[in-house]
């Protein structure tokens, strides 16, 4: 294996502990230092300003600037809420699982700082049901943080109080979409809302709400302790910091890897770091992001470079596939996932993903000829641009690109 020099740039994963994920160890590593300083020296606006200057972009998939999101929260309306989106459901993504299980205090500190910045006294973690170990560790971390007065009433003797509650989902991919998540928390089915208004203005129970991803919030204590300039020394100008990738599929070393944004190519990541041998294609950020062919992997892993290649960094859930199982099966399963997870609110998504799946299933079973692939593309075209949330849209784009890029190979299979 060729040595990849950049690998040691771990700023988040250094906080992940297999066994010593306790509060004492976190404090020993410098944990809660940022929170102490902020509560003593900084005004909420100064925190938002620092995060804005750091250029941190949301790590959940959409990449919206975090500081700006917080800036949009109106000052005068009360109460306000912070919600940590830990409903990591994008297939191939398990980077938040690592942080939740092995660095729960980093998240708690990040949430406490974020709540202070936006003026929230109540915060929630929306955790997916599929992560029972994370649930156990988070409940424990909340309890111990309160005991040490880093959380709860009058934190560290100041006037700032924060209550963090764990809200466990019940199995629905769509609840990872922020407005569907809010609906779910309000005791309704997880159906996305029409935007605007954005949650920053009218979110949980109609009050201003910031919804941030786990990895995003985990970056906050580091930015606040070491400064925006330090954070900007990692990654690229437009995408500062590091990114955690979760790599799975046809590789020898699947797992969690952290690199500076844009300082490693997809090819280096899958071949050199993860030991892939024969690759047919790669989903760079979960199956919602259009796949790249084996010849297209010489692209930097950051928001902008992948976008230029017609795909997305997404959640950083890199799925590598070979020809061990037929490509038509991977394609059919992609459509099947969205069909299963469509909430049913928008007709083009509800019906379109169903049709798409049915057509691809018939192609796979050789019930219809390869012209079925043209029909599938036509259905994708009719879903695009007609849905409230990104679910139908990403299904259509991902499946359409899959068919266009791998058409010859798929036709060879059927």
């Amino acid at each position, binding site marked *: 294996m060729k040595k990849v020099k950049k690998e040691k740039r771990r700023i988040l994963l250094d906080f992940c502990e297999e066994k010593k994920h306790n509060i004492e160890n976190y404090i020993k590593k410098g944990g809660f230092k940022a929170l102490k300083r902020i509560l003593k020296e900084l005004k909420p606006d100064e925190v938002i300003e620092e995060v804005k200057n750091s250029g941190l972009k949301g790590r959940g998939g959409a990449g919206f600037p975090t500081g700006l999101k917080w800036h949009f929260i109106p000052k005068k309306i009360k109460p306000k809420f912070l919600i940590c989106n830990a409903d990591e459901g994008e297939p191939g993504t398990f980077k938040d699982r690592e942080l939740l299980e092995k660095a729960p205090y980093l998240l708690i500190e990040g949430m406490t700082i974020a709540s202070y910045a936006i003026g929230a006294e109540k915060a929630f973690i929306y955790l997916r049901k599929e992560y029972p170990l994370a649930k156990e560790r988070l409940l424990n971390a909340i309890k111990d943080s309160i005991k040490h007065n880093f959380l709860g009433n009058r934190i560290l003797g100041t006037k700032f109080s924060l209550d963090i509650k764990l809200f*466990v989902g*019940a*199995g629905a991919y769509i609840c990872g979409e922020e407005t569907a998540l809010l609906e779910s*928390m309000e*005791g309704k089915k997880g159906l996305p809302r029409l935007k605007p208004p954005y949650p920053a203005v009218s979110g949980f129970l109609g009050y201003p709400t910031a919804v941030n991803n786990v990895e995003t919030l985990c970056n906050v204590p580091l930015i606040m302790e070491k400064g925006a300039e330090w954070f900007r020394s990692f990654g690229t100008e437009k995408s500062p910091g590091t990114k955690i990738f979760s790599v799975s599929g046809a590789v020898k070393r699947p797992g969690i890897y952290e690199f500076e944004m844009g300082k490693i190519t997809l090819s280096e990541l899958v071949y050199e770091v993860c030991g892939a041998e024969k690759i047919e294609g790669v989903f760079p950020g979960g199956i919602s992001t259009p796949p790249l062919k084996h010849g297209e992997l010489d692209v930097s892993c950051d928001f902008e470079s992948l976008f230029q290649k017609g795909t997305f960094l997404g959640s950083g859930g890199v799925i590598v596939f070979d020809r061990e199982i037929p490509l038509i099966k991977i394609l059919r399963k992609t459509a099947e*996932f969205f069909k299963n997870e469509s909430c049913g609110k928008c007709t083009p998504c509800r019906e379109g993903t169903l049709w798409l799946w049915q057509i691809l299933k018939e192609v796979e079973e050789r019930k219809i000829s390869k012209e079925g692939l043209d029909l599938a593309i036509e259905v994708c075209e009719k879903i695009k641009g007609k849905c409230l949330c990104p679910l139908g849209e990403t299904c259509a784009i991902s499946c359409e690109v899959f068919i266009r890029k791998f058409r010859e190979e798929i036709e060879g299979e059927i």
Partner: protein
Amino acid sequence: MKREIKKILKEFENSEIALLQVLNYIQSKKGFVDDESIEEVSNILKISRDEIRSLVSFYHFIHQEKTGKYRIYVCTNIPCLLKGADKLISDIKNFLDIEIGETTPDGLFSVFETECIGQCDSAPAIIINDKIYRNLSREKIKKIIDRIKKNEES
């Protein structure tokens, strides 16, 4: 059950916010959310039965029909598929002699397909009730099932 529901309500301070947590609790206690439970939840939380039913039908891990004591959820998404999830499902179906969505006659096991459970680095993986099992093979899953059966017998 009433006491636990009230405890959850107290923690979340609001019926609507407590609702899904209450349903999760009933699901884990009973294995499904039946009409009797819906009635009780409706009375305590003052939320209509229809609204509760709509949630029960929406979320994958909340069942309307009676399920086995051990609910096996097999991940069938692409990372697991690439590591033999198909084969794993047919092995499980064979060992238990049931189809997806069915329950064994002794009421012990039900099998369901599920989407990505975030264990892609240790695929194929499954969830049994609230426990994760990773890197599964025919031998491993057989051992797990046999062990559960043996524990239940004694």
